[in-house]
């Protein structure tokens, strides 16, 4: 699903944010990406959705060579990737339902598809009965569910989550985590950046650790491994 070869990313010629990374993620895997702040985790996510172009190396995502991809075709890549962020990135003037349907509208899905898929995915994330709430009328956990629904409504083969539980209390985090697990069980590959040591230790999934731009650990059924 993801294949990274000799990837180096340097902002404005300074010290590399990512230095010679090699990484393969298979279809259907669940991968935690851990590491201290400034280790290059977010840079890696941005490279995967081609918000950034690497200084060197090759990246293939869902069969797309995304380094040599022309900008006008980037949207085709992004339709294969769902994204969830710490700050949710919801539109404040749209309801939960509209936030999700917006994602389908802008990729040109028909009204009929939207009407069936949006309620389905909102129920899946447990927002039944809250379709017409605006983001400011929802709790943090509920907002993250909306954003998860938006990321997943198009059934992308890959889901990137950048600290999705960073703003949430432990109980809510566990619920979001179990949703991600559910989504992973449908065959969706998930790459999740997190600082939540307990979650990583409990779930025992593959763990990739970055430090100062170097890949320092890649462990199947790993643990968090930092004393922070």
């Amino acid at each position, binding site marked *: 699903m993801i294949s990274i070869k000799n990837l180096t990313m340097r902002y404005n010629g300074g010290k590399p944010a990512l230095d010679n990374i090699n990484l393969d993620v298979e279809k259907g895997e669940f991968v935690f990406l851990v590491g201290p702040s400034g280790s290059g985790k977010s840079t890696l996510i941005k490279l995967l959705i081609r918000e950034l172009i690497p200084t060197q190396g090759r990246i293939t995502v869902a069969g797309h060579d995304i380094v040599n991809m022309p*900008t*006008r075709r*980037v*949207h*085709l890549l*992004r*339709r294969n990737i769902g994204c969830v962020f710490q700050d949710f*990135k919801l539109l404040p003037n749209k309801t939960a339902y509209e936030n999700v349907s917006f*994602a389908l509208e802008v990729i040109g899905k028909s009204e009929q598809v939207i009407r069936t898929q949006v309620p389905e995915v909102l129920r899946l994330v447990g927002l039944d009965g809250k379709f017409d709430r605006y983001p400011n009328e929802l709790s943090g956990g509920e907002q993250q569910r909306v954003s998860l629904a938006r990321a997943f409504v*198009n059934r992308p083969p890959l889901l990137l989550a950048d600290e999705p539980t960073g703003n949430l209390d432990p109980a809510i985090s566990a619920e979001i985590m179990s949703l991600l697990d559910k989504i992973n069980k449908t065959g969706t590959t998930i790459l999740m950046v997190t600082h939540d040591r307990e979650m990583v230790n409990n779930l025992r999934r593959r763990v990739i650790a970055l430090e100062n731009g170097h890949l320092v650990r890649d462990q199947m059924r790993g643990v968090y491994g930092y004393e922070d």
Partner: protein
Amino acid sequence: MRIKPLYFTREAIESMRRNFAMSSAAMSTAALSLFMVGAFILMFMILRSFAADTLSKLEIEVFLKDEAASAQVQAFQNEITSWQEVKSIKYVSKDEALARLKERLKDKPDILEALSGNPLPASIRIFTKEASFIEPTVAKINSYQALAEVVENPKTDIKYGAEFIDRLFSVFKVMGWIGFGAAFLLCFASVVLIINTIRLTILARSKEVSIMRLVGASMWFVRWPFLLEGMFQGLAGSVVAIGLLYFVKVWVLRKMTEIIPFLRITITTASFVQLVLGITFGGILIGAVGSAIALRRFLKV
């Protein structure tokens, strides 16, 4: 991807409603510049019509020398009449010329009394089919081989409105350049204003745009509403400009015919429709160019 014109239009209109002040400013500048361009074109149409009317009244008058033999004069007349450019000619005898002068000077009998005999020459008045035939016809007269037999001095005795024509056209040229210069500057100003309007709209909606890009909207899907917005602003400007131009056209034509009743100035419906179409497309183009420039810098997401 399927294009959704309705969706894009709704987005564009909604955005203009939200940025009403800025949109109106852009629209007014577009209206003003298009009106200026249109007004200059209209002025040209009026001047051209005026020139055509004036030139159609122009004639050539060839003054004959008194001692010219009547056979020579007749041959000269026959020659001129046979030319394609010539519509008609009129022979004015010495007596007729005097009668005409008396008629013109009937308020000043003292001048007439001072006249002894008839100093006026006979002449041939030549009317061409079109104003533009005047100069070639004069050239032909000058190259008539027996001209010396009938005309004393071709330089002074062949009269037509050459100087008048030349002056008229040089005035047109200068006015035209000034007009187009001003209109061009105004068009430039309205493009700049539309760029700024669209830029503000994009800034106001940058979060929405970045989410659109994130979930996989194509560049064109993001662009269309902004492009349409610019085009609507240009179009609205051109509608205002056309309305003003129509008013000006009607008013100016009425005033001019009031002041100079014998003038026949007309602007055909066909040429006004051409002007309307030109301004409409001009407006849309200004809007599209403005928003395209604004988008170029902001859509590098």
